[in-house]
């Protein structure tokens, strides 16, 4: 959680400045963080109230609906595992979105980057899996990272060199990636056994050795998450969150990216190559989305397949990652709980739908309401911050308050 890490960080600073003052600041900082959380909690309550009203008008019992949602998301081991599995690709994408946002680039291309990453990784796995066995996994991850990164870097390059709006270019590149996937999965990469049949677009299954192992947590009396779909991809995502946090806040590379994101002119003045940072942050964002794509294939579906629709393979993880990144305060560590929350919403909604026999569009809209409320609460927090300083707000302020590291 961002505020936890920040508190930890604050306290680390303060050992130097004196323990007593440190404790006092610590208490004040903690209280401040709690206050910052309040709008988010109110937003959640508000979202559930509005949703409850909608459910009531449709003669559904909101209590029943939401308890179904909760139990569907976290009610038992299996439900929790499903939630975490759902959260995994979203978390990868969200970490990448964080990097791009911090670098002042808005990446809407998570979908396309996931797809190119998955395509490259799958191609490597299918062609080398037999020979390399387990060792094809790191190779596939690397290929996916590079392919997704390259796809993201295209938009970064266009922005840096020709001032092409990255929102537009990434959205259009999404289409390019979808069509590329549809072509490859119906042609060159189609499962050879399905050629000539009435097939869905999919590759052959990957070899067993190339599968990312299931994740089991040994407890005193039993294995937690035994017989569930949860895989080590989640752990990899959490690790990446930590790595990216260190990269962004503890290294000169991250310092450059953040400087460009907050104030391009000051960064230029400081001697930072602004264009380079734009390409780099989009490369990293794309690379992380690429990992999201390949981890889905190697950890969950064991083959790359789609139904031909834009979200056929990604399940919208590339877009959901944006919401999660914002919800997580645009910090990699904040994205971890945010992605679990969002995964829970998606998975819980399925059970809710079964329980109340509602239309799937109803469930989608309830999720939408929750997202709108939560994002609105972020804007409320920003406004409050603005009033606090009594200054004016500009586009740069869309970024949340910076974590202090020194």
């Amino acid at each position, binding site marked *: 959680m961002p505020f936890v890490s920040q508190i930890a960080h*604050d306290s680390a*600073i303060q050992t*130097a*400045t004196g323990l007593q003052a440190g404790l006092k600041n610590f208490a004040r900082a903690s209280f401040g963080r709690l206050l910052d959380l309040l709008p988010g909690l109110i937003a959640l309550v508000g979202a559930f109230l509005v949703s409850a009203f909608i459910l009531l008008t449709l003669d559904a019992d909101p209590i029943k609906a939401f308890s179904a949602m909760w139990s569907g998301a976290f009610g038992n081991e299996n439900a929790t595992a499903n939630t975490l599995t759902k959260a995994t690709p979203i978390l990868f994408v969200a970490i990448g979105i964080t990097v791009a946002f911090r670098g002042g680039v808005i990446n809407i291309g998570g979908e396309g980057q996931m797809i190119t990453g998955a395509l490259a990784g799958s191609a490597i796995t299918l062609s080398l899996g037999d020979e390399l066995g387990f060792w094809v996994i790191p190779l596939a991850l690397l290929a996916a990272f590079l392919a997704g990164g390259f796809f993201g870097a295209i938009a970064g390059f266009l922005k840096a060199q020709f001032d092409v709006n990255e929102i537009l270019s990434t959205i259009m590149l999404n289409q390019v990636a979808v069509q590329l996937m549809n072509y490859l999965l119906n042609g060159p990469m189609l499962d050879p056994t399905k050629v000539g049949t009435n097939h869905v677009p999919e590759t052959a299954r990957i070899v067993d050795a190339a599968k990312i192992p299931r994740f089991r947590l040994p407890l005193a009396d039993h294995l937690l998450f035994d017989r569930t779909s949860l895989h080590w991809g989640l752990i990899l995502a959490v690790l990446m969150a930590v790595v990216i946090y260190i990269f962004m806040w*503890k*290294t*000169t*590379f991250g*310092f*450059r990216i*953040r*400087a460009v994101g*907050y*104030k391009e*002119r*000051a*960064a*230029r*003045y*400081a*001697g*930072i*190559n602004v264009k380079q940072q734009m390409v780099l942050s989009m490369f990293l964002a794309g690379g992380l989305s690429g990992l999201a794509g390949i981890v889905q294939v190697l950890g969950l579906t064991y083959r790359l397949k789609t139904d031909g629709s834009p979200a056929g393979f990604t399940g919208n993880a590339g877009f959901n990652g944006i919401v999660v990144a914002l919800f997580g305060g645009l910090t990699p560590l904040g994205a971890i709980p945010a992605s679990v929350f969002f995964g829970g919403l998606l998975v819980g909604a399925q059970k809710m739908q079964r329980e109340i026999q509602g239309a799937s569009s109803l469930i989608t809209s309830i999720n939408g309401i929750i997202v709108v409320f939560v994002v609105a609460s972020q804007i409320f927090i920003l406004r409050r911050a603005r009033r*606090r*300083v*009594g*200054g004016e707000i500009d586009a*740069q302020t869309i*970024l949340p*308050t*910076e974590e*202090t*590291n*020194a």
Partner: protein
Amino acid sequence: MSNLATKRDVEPVLQMRGMVKAFPGVKAIDQVDFDLHNGEVHALLGENGAGKSTLMKVLYGMYSPDAGEILLDGQATKINSPSEAIAQGIGMIHQHFMLVPSLTVVENVALGMKSSRGYRLDLDDVAAKLEQLSHDYNLSVNVHAPIWQLAVGEQQRVEILRALYKGAAILILDEPTAVLTPGEVDDLFRVLRQMTAEGHGCIFISHKLHEVLAISQRITVLRDGRLVDTIETEGATRAQLAEMMVGRPVLQNYQFPPLNAGTPRLTLRGVNALNEREEPGLIDVSLEVHSGEIVGIAGVSGNGQRELAQVIAGLRPATSGTLEMEGTAIERLNPAEIKDLGLSYIPEERMEDGVITEFSVAENYMLRDYDSTKFSRNGVFLRFDAVDQACSEAIRDYEIKTPASSTKVKSLSGGNIQKLVLARELDRNPRVLLAAQPIRGVDIGATEYIHQRLLDEREKGTAILLISEDLDEIQLLSDRILVMYEGRIVGEMKREEVVLQQLGAWMAGATEEDPAPAFA
């Protein structure tokens, strides 16, 4: 106008009593009283952060006060927004003009007002009325010209016209002379005198003592959000006002050791460069700054000073000519390489270029050298301990007022931010220091400090190029003064030979060969 004139001197048209406005952690203004009569210029004087702007923003409805009352014509009133302030006859001329450059004067005035012709624009009516006003008040402006074609002084007249058009009886002018040439200042003062003669009341916010003494009838001084005193201008002296502002006697002159110039450290020969609009911004500029010497660039802002600084720092390409630092050609180097040759740069727009306000004091302190071995391990991992230590030393050495090195820069005052920039740039032990508008928006105390540091740097042998619109500052610190006008260097004077009239004439466009002063 007549109804305004008849009310003059009966009672204050405006009274503010016991105004309090607190922001978290600070009381921006605390129990401040202020009043204004029709027909007077009442100056509001104080250092940055003294509460002048806050008090006026309360009056103009931009902030709601925590306590205190506002009386207009003796009636208690509440002003909740700028539009309510305008409706009650209060106009404000902001320091940064609120005009749309691509629209004409008339369109700017009509902007945001209801048209008298319903959905059709009534620009002709507005134009006619504006022309009448501009005639009445001697505010010559071509009302059909687009704003971008107007000089700064003219744009300010448009702002005043707009306020008058909207029926302002009380006019608040926030640092109105900051952007004007000496000649334009005289014009503005003429307009203000005419307005007060017509019965308007003007509030003149400034920290320039001589202007305040020249234009106002009364002066109110604020310090740290509190009222120091309100005095009659007649009989007041600069030293007295400065002491009221700062709270202690102020140095009026610095120790200026004799020039001990060494070898040239920065040399420009025939440099040309384009400005933002792709027009020639620097034309055939040649200059030389020696070790131990301060060269001042005087001129009204927008005459190529910014381009000059950017070209030297590598932020703007020179289209022709050569630039050298101690024999090394720098015209093809990038900002980082020039920085590493020993150029320190205090940028003109401190908040845009100099600091990243969302970053902490320490992060800003390392902004120029974050990847040096001093602040990073192998240029990769940041050494926060080292940064913190160096920054804490700088905070102490440069008397930067900040709660901690981890505080965000945006919560620091302008003067302290500038000291931070100064600390960062000087602690690098520069060979050449480029200081652009180093005291803009900085209070007297910090100004004194910054100037002293620049002189210390001169003693140490650093070559200093000082760019400033503030002629007082240029005169005070420079060994040589160059004047820029429309991208060219039009005149040069040694410290010993300075003739103020001549400098003013050059700044207004007279050439060295044609020394006839454009104004006196």
